[in-house]
């Protein structure tokens, strides 16, 4: 079998009158981890559902591990594992029963299914809870079981749909460790996420999508350069004068509502510059801080259009 990753060309998907995917193209090299980054409703889950043959394509083509998604869906299914944001494991069954069921469905015999389940339960630190019903599991444990269920039989390509959405920080950290373990094993991984930080941490390359279109792609470093460093937030009165003074000194300055003035493209040096400029103008700041760009700001920079939500806040 040739070793192939995921190739998506001009993928299109329409639900009634709503176009979920306008035109999505990207590639996941064999053994690479690609993060599909975007807000809710951007088309991330739809993309994954198309690639895992749950939804028929309305245009374009895609291949997974060398199998055409439209022409050879059974071949695709035999090459992938899908774990979803809804943690699709059976509540009423125990963790072990879940894994044994999936093993048996995938044609392991009774003994092999039991052995594989035990191995995965240990590997995913679920050994102690193995024989308790899943409904007693924490959110993090469910996700780990969900991921384990996708690995009962090893597949070359793995789709992880929002693996950490809704998890607490501990659960998220544990999930990240698991994903990093998979990456070390050389699995080809496509993961969707709403969190820049997560894509940054786990992915070799990030594909940013919004409204069913790819609006940027590159390594995390390349994207950050596009977004332009950090953001410096200044809270000071009088606001109008603060805005004017800062705008004279720094180009990319905006009001972002709540009496906050933001300087984009900032770095740690910007912080001292802002302090100096304000002192010279005789303005006392209530608060000055430096932070990472939010996903909204990434989109602002990438699309060059203000996010709708920001309009509402200002208006």
């Amino acid at each position, binding site marked *: *079998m040739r070793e192939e990753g995921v190739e998506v060309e001009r993928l299109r998907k329409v639900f009634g009158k709503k176009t979920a995917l306008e035109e999505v193209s990207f590639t996941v090299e064999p053994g690479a981890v690609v993060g599909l980054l975007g807000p809710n409703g951007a088309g991330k889950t739809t993309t994954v*559902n198309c690639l*895992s*043959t*749950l*939804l028929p394509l309305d245009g374009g083509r895609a291949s997974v591990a060398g*199998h055409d998604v439209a022409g*050879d869906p*059974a*071949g695709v*299914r*035999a*090459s*992938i594992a*899908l774990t*979803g944001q*809804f*943690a*699709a*494991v*059976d*509540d*009423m*069954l125990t963790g072990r*029963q879940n894994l044994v*069921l*999936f093993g*048996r*469905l*995938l044609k392991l015999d009774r003994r092999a299914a039991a052995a594989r389940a035990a191995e995965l339960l240990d590997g995913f630190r679920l050994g102690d809870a193995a024989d308790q*019903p899943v409904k007693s599991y924490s959110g993090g444990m469910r996700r780990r079981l969900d991921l384990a*269920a996708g690995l009962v039989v090893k597949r070359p390509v793995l789709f992880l749909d929002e693996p950490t959405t809704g998890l607490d920080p501990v659960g998220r950290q544990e999930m990240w460790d698991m994903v990093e373990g998979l990456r070390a094993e050389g699995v080809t991984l496509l993961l969707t996420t709403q969190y820049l930080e997560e894509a940054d941490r786990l992915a070799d390359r990030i594909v940013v999508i919004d409204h069913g279109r790819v609006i940027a792609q590159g390594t995390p470093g390349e994207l950050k350069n596009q977004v332009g460093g950090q953001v410096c937030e200044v809270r000071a009165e009088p606001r109008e004068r603060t805005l004017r003074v800062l705008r004279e000194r720094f180009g990319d300055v905006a009001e972002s509502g709540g009496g906050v003035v933001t300087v984009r493209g900032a770095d740690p040096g910007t912080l001292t510059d802002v302090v100096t400029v304000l002192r010279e103008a005789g303005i006392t700041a209530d608060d000055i801080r430096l932070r990472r760009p939010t996903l909204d700001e990434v989109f602002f920079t990438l699309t060059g259009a203000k996010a709708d939500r920001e309009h509402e806040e200002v208006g």
Partner: protein
Amino acid sequence: MATGTEAGPVNLFGQGLLLAGRNLRLNSTADTVSTMVVFPIVFVFGFLALFQNLLKTRGVDYAQFLPPAIVVQWMFSVAITAAFFFASDRRSGMLARYRSLPISRGAVVVGRIAADAVRALLAIAVIIAAGYAAGFRFQAGPVASLGFVVLSVGFALTVSAGTSALGLVSRDPESVSSTLHVVYLPLLMVSSAFVPADAFPGWIEPFVRHQPVSVVLDALRALADGGPTAGPVLRAIAWLAALLAVFSAAAVQAFRRAA
């Protein structure tokens, strides 16, 4: 890599039975002894206590009349549970997971049908046992008795096809289940289930006589009591065949779309 490893009857039934086992295990935790055993017995003896003397004056042997009605009621319950579990599986993402696995496309359906059939058989056994204690008897021989069981299960699976179509388009098991109760309760009440059709007011009697629930009940009673059976049974089979054609088409559509 070979394609088409999913198809074939071995996969369909092998994987279908695995899923049936899972469905039954789910049921055994969800609806416990009380819904499957205690409730039918309560219904049998409860209705007997209410109506036995009253209907004796009309010449009806209620212990013989009632058990088929409770069977039909429980067949509805089996079908509504099927819808409930399909909707739960859709909401939880289990259905999507099955569909992303390289398993037989029809295994999920076979798993559902097999589990429903087992549940239907269990309910029939419990109700008939309670009926026997109260005085109910199969009076038309073993073949007719077997026909009674087969027709009852057939009715459950036909209704299941329809309810499953609804369950598959929904992600809300509770609302599917309550909607279906709103549909089935009037159908059962306004039928010959609990009192003979001629006990209804004249204006509604024709509906009571000819609606499918009554037609199935007439056939079940003919199979239990003896007398002419061919006519009622054929009418019931015709109804079920027509309903099954419509319901299964809807269910297949819904199943294809349920991602």
